[in-house]
């Protein structure tokens, strides 16, 4: 059972951060969809829901997503549907049902670096940065490569609007189940960014240039997949995942050609 001793409606991000670092058992509350599945004893649950962090905005050359934005908003947002072939919106639409997607939040998912995340895989195929309250702005790839989840607050997700085309694919045993493997590929100026997640580890990204695909697409994909590690868990074996990865990457590239 998960408990919250005290609930704090933070008046500012600063107040939230100060509270967060004061005690090991103080925690930021996202949508609390996931937190409640665990058995954490939270001392102070820090609620950011009054700070207008629920937004999807178009900047000069970026799309900015606030941490408290729900997956349902991401799924239905016009801006996200119109850019990158809708890959960001598509990545979340099979996550359980719309009722859960109306609860769970973008910031919590990315900050936690969940390996199973469909959303992170889509973001990773694009030019995505995140902003941490103390840690500043860094690329999503850099953030994921650090083993630890920092004691910090994710305040913004920033996607560069550079006209990439993109595709998202996931393999699930049944609709709304966790993905056995997911994959997002983007394409710009002859460069493919191939992101693969639910391996079951954290999503990773590899680059393929168009000219490397011309002669033997299957061989190149095999090389890329060889560089990624695939693990076994209750859902699938590493070997099976590896085979699925090749198919999903190939289909994504074909779709973008």
């Amino acid at each position: 059972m998960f408990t919250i001793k005290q609930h704090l409606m933070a008046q500012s991000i600063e107040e939230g951060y100060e509270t967060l670092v004061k005690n090991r058992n103080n925690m930021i509350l996202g949508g609390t969809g996931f937190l409640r599945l665990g058995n954490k004893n939270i001392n102070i649950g820090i609620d950011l829901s009054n700070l207008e962090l629920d937004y999807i905005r178009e900047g000069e050359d970026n799309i900015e997503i606030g941490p408290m934005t729900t997956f349902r908003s991401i799924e239905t947002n016009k801006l996200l549907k119109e850019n990158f072939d809708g890959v960001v919106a598509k990545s979340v639409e099979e996550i359980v049902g719309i009722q859960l997607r109306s609860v769970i939040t973008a910031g919590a998912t990315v900050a936690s670096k969940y390996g199973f995340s469909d959303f992170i895989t889509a973001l990773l195929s694009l030019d995505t940065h995140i902003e941490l309250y103390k840690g500043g702005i860094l690329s999503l790839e850099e953030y994921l490569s650090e083993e630890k989840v920092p004691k910090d607050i994710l305040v913004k997700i920033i996607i560069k609007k550079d006209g990439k085309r993109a595709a998202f694919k996931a393999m699930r045993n049944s609709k709304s189940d966790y993905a056995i493997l997911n994959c997002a590929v983007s394409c710009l100026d002859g460069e493919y960014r191939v992101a693969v997640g639910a391996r079951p580890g954290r999503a990773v990204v590899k680059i393929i240039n168009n000219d490397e695909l011309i002669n033997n697409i299957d061989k190149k994909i095999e090389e890329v997949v060889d560089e990624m590690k695939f693990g076994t868990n209750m859902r699938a074996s590493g070997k099976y995942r590896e085979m699925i990865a090749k198919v999903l990457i190939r289909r994504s590239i074909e779709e973008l050609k």
Partner: protein
Amino acid sequence: MEIKLKINGINKEVTIKDGEYLQSALKRLGFLNVRKGCETGSCGLCTVLLNGKPTLSCSTLAVRGIGKEITTLEGESVEVAKFAEVLTDEGADQCGYCSPGFTLTVIAMKRELESPTIDEIKHYLTGNLCRCTGYMGQLRAVKKYMEVK
């Protein structure tokens, strides 16, 4: 903690524990139609409408209901009666445990989607599990209620 919640159009003063979820608060207030199935966010039985949007009350903290319109089955009596009629016509009412959450989602869908396809309907309803009906009768009823072929 004392909070104010607007439930089915009526303002109520509610005393909640820190970290309490909306489902348990609503149940305590006597809204027994707000059911609980899995308590892990997977079944949709605890669905209520928050500002008209189907939301899991088992996974939403009660404080997140402040300043919003909370609607349970009791707050939608006209539409509920309409849908119940088509549902029974199609023989899709069985144990009924999933009905409140399911019915509220269907009502919200009718307001949100304009002439949806069958796939769009299924997509909207995916988060609603039912252990009895096998879904086919429910789907027939939904199509009738939504007036789609």
